[in-house]
């Protein structure tokens, strides 16, 4: 068992597992919990989840690699996910992605060297009335333009 998973996390995990008639059904809530604390799902966590749910690690990896929000690689402190779907694109998302790319010095899919920002493009976030949108971790920011992005990044820095 990974020593990095605290006792209280383990307690929460056991509580989550108890909600479902079959242990395996708890896999997404458990992985979300672990990723929110550790930032990503490494081999160690895959094996831990497998052990807790009574399944083979290969079944955990099947899930981790299927869902877009789950990451096997460390993410930056701030995961900036810009919507690149239809409405946001019509409303100028592509230019904003380029702007962020330039400002942070990384391409979509990469993390800054200091580990603070990861930039990715995602599909529809379900906030099209505020297009263009981005999600920082799980906070939504809409009606974006260059100025707003500057402001948000500044606020994150503080």
């Amino acid at each position: 068992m990974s020593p990095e998973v605290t006792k209280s996390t383990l307690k929460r995990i056991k509580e989550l597992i108890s909600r479902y008639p079959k242990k395996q059904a708890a896999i997404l809530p458990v992985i979300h919990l672990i990723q929110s604390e550790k930032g990503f799902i490494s081999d160690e966590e895959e094996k831990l989840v497998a052990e807790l749910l009574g399944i083979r690690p290969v079944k955990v990896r099947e899930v981790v690699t299927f869902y877009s929000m789950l990451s096997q690689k460390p993410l930056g402190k701030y995961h900036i996910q810009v919507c690149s779907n239809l409405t946001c694109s019509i409303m100028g998302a592509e230019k904003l992605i380029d702007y962020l790319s330039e400002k942070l010095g990384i391409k979509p899919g990469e993390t800054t060297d200091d580990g603070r920002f990861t930039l990715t493009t995602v599909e529809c976030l379900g906030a099209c009335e505020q297009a263009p949108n981005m999600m920082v971790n799980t906070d939504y920011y809409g009606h974006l333009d260059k100025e707003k992005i500057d402001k948000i990044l500044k606020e994150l820095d503080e």
Partner: protein
Amino acid sequence: MNKVPEKVLTKNFDVDHLFKIDVYMKKGGYKTLNKVLKKLKPDDVLKEVKAAHLRGRGGAGFPAGVKWGFVPKDVDKPKYLCVNADEGEPGTFKDRYIMSHNPHMLLEGIIITGYCVGIHTAFIYIRGEYENIAQRLEKAVSEAEDKGFLGKNILKTGFDLNVFVHRGAGAYICGEETALLESLEGKRGNPRLKPPFPAAIGLFQSPTVINNVETLSNIPHIMEKGADWFVKQGLPEDGGTRIFGVSGQVKKPGIYELPVGTSLKELIYTHAGGMESGKKLKAVIPGGMSSPILKPDEIDIPMDCESLMKADSMLGSGAVIVIDEDVPIIDVLRKITQFYSHESCGQCTPCRIGNSWIHKIVNRIYKGKGKKGDLDNIEKLANNMLGRTLCPLGDAAAMPILGIVKKFRKELESEIKG
């Protein structure tokens, strides 16, 4: 529509802290639940919902009452309700509003539904990105439990129901009902073969009802004011109001609750303020990305399931995307193929390879390397996906692609030549 549209679902959205149970109850919340549990039998609820002609609000438009009727009565297995809060259809954001502004309305609908079908465990499968809203829902569940509206022996009537909030993790396909079940069971979101249908064999091999957030949110209103009233809000075979979402290049993007059958033109120009910056309209997507595109001369159309189907499109999730004359249609096509190739689960051959292949061709055209025969090839490939896939995602991709290639052929051809 010669009546003043009545706001049903969004009626109290402007009330501060409506998401708190005390505020909700002050506005009359949970009174209907009380009446239903204490004075009505489950079959009475089913009859009413059937008579209301409430069609599913998630995209497929299947009548809710009929779906509930498919659940076998005497089965030695627990029954489940899955609330589809995955809201992944591009252009759609209405359920986000319902769950963040009025989560208790949804819960009340869930509990009444559970009572009707004999369900004692419900899962709200909410898309992973809506984490803050999931927390709000969890809080609402907790409040409802404290007040005795959830848990054991609800309102001392002997009816038990537990609601659990379950977050997804970023997969559009999990909005498809059987993929949702697979995901809830802890596996990859691969849709299942139908038959068997979830009403008979669903979650954990047990009878399961799956309904959209907006669909269930209508239930308390139907039980409060009756099926006849509900039908009168909309059309005879398609009752009630719908929360339309308008986005894109309009002056006032947002949600608009209007009767089923409201004209698309009225929705865009009267309610959403018309075109932004005075540009001309080029195209409208009427019901989320999966619905085939409409040209400006086709928007004089009532927004109901039947009318849009007759126009070779779809009401879907009622998510309207407005596109103006400055948007190259190749951009629209590229975003569509990008989305479906990214979201395909990969299980069945036509969708897995067809979507990716079409996207590769469209990308090539976008980058200026289009060739003669590309458009014919795209049509052939999309037709090889249509009706041939394991789940509706194949159709959801093929239909809009075919729609655009047919209706905007000239513009696409010029993209290839020039």
